[in-house]
C-alpha cells in the first residue's frame, strides 16, 4: 500500500507539467487545425497543395520521429543553434509543444474538414443571400455547424493529444510518463506503476470526454419546452 501511495505522489508531481503541455498543445493544435482545414477546403490550389504536403508529413510520421527531429535533429545543425529560434528550440518544453501541436493540428484539420464537408449548401446559400461576408459567414454559420458535426470525432483527438503528451518524456521533461519510467527502472514493478499512470491518464481523459459530451449536449437543438 505504501508503495502505491509513493508512486501516486511521485507521478502526481508530473501532473502539472503534463497538463501544461496538453493545454498549450490543445490551443495551438486547434487553431492550426482550423486554419489548415479552411485552407484545404476554401483555399486556392497552391494552398491546398501546401496543406496536403503538410498533412502527408505530419500525419505520416510517428510523433516519436517528429519530436526526435525537432529536438535532437535540429540541434545537430550549427546554423540552428546560432539562430534566434534557438532559445525556444533549446527548451524541451517548447519542442514538445511544437511537435505535439504540429502533429495534432494535422489530425484535427482532417476532422474539421469532415465537418466542413457536412455543412449543407443550403445553409451557405442562405448566408450568402443575406450579404454575409465570407468571414462573417464562417464565424456565424459555417464554423458553428462544422464544430458541432466534428465534435465527437474531435473528442477522439483530444484524447489522442493527452496521450501524445507522453512523448515529452523522451526529451527529458519530467512529466507523468517520464516519472513512471524512472520508477519502473528503479523498482522493476512495471504493472503496478503503469497501471497507476494509466489511471491518471484515464482520469484526465475522462474529464476531457465529459466536457466534450457536455458541449455536444448543449449544442443539440433541444425540443421547445412549452
Amino acid at each position, binding site marked *: 500500500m505504501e508503495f502505491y501511495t509513493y508512486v501516486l505522489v511521485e507521478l502526481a508531481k508530473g501532473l502539472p507539467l503534463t497538463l501544461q503541455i496538453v493545454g498549450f498543445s490543445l490551443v495551438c493544435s486547434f487553431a492550426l487545425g482550423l486554419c489548415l482545414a479552411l485552407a484545404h477546403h476554401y483555399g486556392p490550389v497552391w494552398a491546398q497543395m501546401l496543406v496536403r504536403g503538410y498533412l502527408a508529413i505530419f500525419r505520416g*510520421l510517428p510523433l516519436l520521429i517528429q519530436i526526435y527531429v525537432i529536438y535532437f535533429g535540429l540541434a545537430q545543425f550549427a546554423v540552428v543553434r546560432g539562430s534566434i529560434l534557438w532559445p525556444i528550440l533549446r527548451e524541451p518544453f517548447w519542442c514538445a509543444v511544437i511537435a505535439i501541436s504540429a502533429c495534432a493540428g494535422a489530425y484535427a484539420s482532417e*476532422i474539421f474538414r*469532415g465537418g466542413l*464537408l457536412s455543412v449543407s449548401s443550403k445553409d451557405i446559400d442562405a448566408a450568402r443571400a443575406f450579404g454575409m461576408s465570407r468571414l462573417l459567414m464562417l464565424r456565424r454559420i459555417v464554423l458553428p455547424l462544422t464544430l458541432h458535426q466534428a465534435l*465527437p470525432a474531435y473528442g477522439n483527438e483530444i484524447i489522442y493529444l493527452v496521450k501524445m503528451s507522453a512523448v515529452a518524456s523522451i526529451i527529458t521533461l519530467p512529466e507523468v510518463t517520464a516519472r513512471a519510467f524512472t520508477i519502473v527502472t528503479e523498482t522493476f514493478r512495471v504493472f503496478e506503476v503503469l497501471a497507476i499512470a494509466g489511471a491518471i*491518464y484515464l482520469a484526465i481523459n475522462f474529464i476531457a470526454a465529459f466536457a466534450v459530451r457536455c458541449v455536444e449536449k448543449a449544442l443539440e437543438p433541444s425540443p421547445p419546452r412549452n
Partner: protein
Amino acid sequence: MDFSPLWEGVWGGLMLRAAAMTLIVAFLAFLLGQVIGLGLTLARLSGVGLLARAAETYTMVVRGVPELLIIYLIFFGGSSTLGWFASWFGHQGYIEVSPLLTGVVAIGMICGAYSSEVIRGAILAVPVGQVEAAISFGMSRLLRARRIVGPQALRYALPGLGNIWLTTIKETSLISVVGLVEIMRQATVAGASLRQPFTFYIVAAAIYMVLTGGSVLIIGRAERRFGRGSMAAGA
C-alpha cells in the same frame, strides 16, 4: 550522413522485412478494429441500456489509457491467464501467445474504440429525413444500414477513419514490446549497432512516408468515390 550500411550490409533487408511486419499487423488490426468499432457503435445506438453502457465504458477506458498499458495487459496478462487455466489441466509453466496475434488483437482493440466514435458521429450526421424515407418504405434496420445510412455515413466517416488508419500504422511501433520487429524497433537496433541513431530514424521516416503517403492517396480516391451526390458546399 552515411547511408551505405543500407545496401552494403544486412540492414536494408532487415528494414524492409520490418516494414512488411508493420504493414501486416496494421492491416489486420485495422480490419479487426472496424469490426469491433461497428459492434460498439451498434451497441451504443441499440437503445438497450446495459449494452450501450458497456460499449461506452469500453470506448472510454480503452481510449483513455495509454496504449502501452493495454498491450502489456493483453500480451502478458493474456499468457498469465492462459497459464492459469492450463494449470487446472495439469500443464505447468508459461504458455506463449503468438506475438503477432497479440499485437493484432491489442492494436485492433484500441483501433476499434477510436473507430466507434467516428462511426457514431457519422451515422448521426445522416439527414433525418432520408432515414425516415427509408423507414417509411418498410426497410428493416439492416437494410437501412446497408443501403441508406451506411453509404452516407461512410462519406462523413472517411476522413476520421483515414486518421485512424494512419495512427494504426504508427501505433504498430508499440508492438515491439511483445518482441515483434517492426520499423521503429529495427531502426533502433540498427542505429545502436552502427552508432548512427539518426541515419536509421531517417530511413524509418522514409518508409513511414511511403506507407502513409500511399494510404492517403487511396483514402482520397475513396472519398471522391463516396462523395457523389453530396450536399456539401463547394469552395
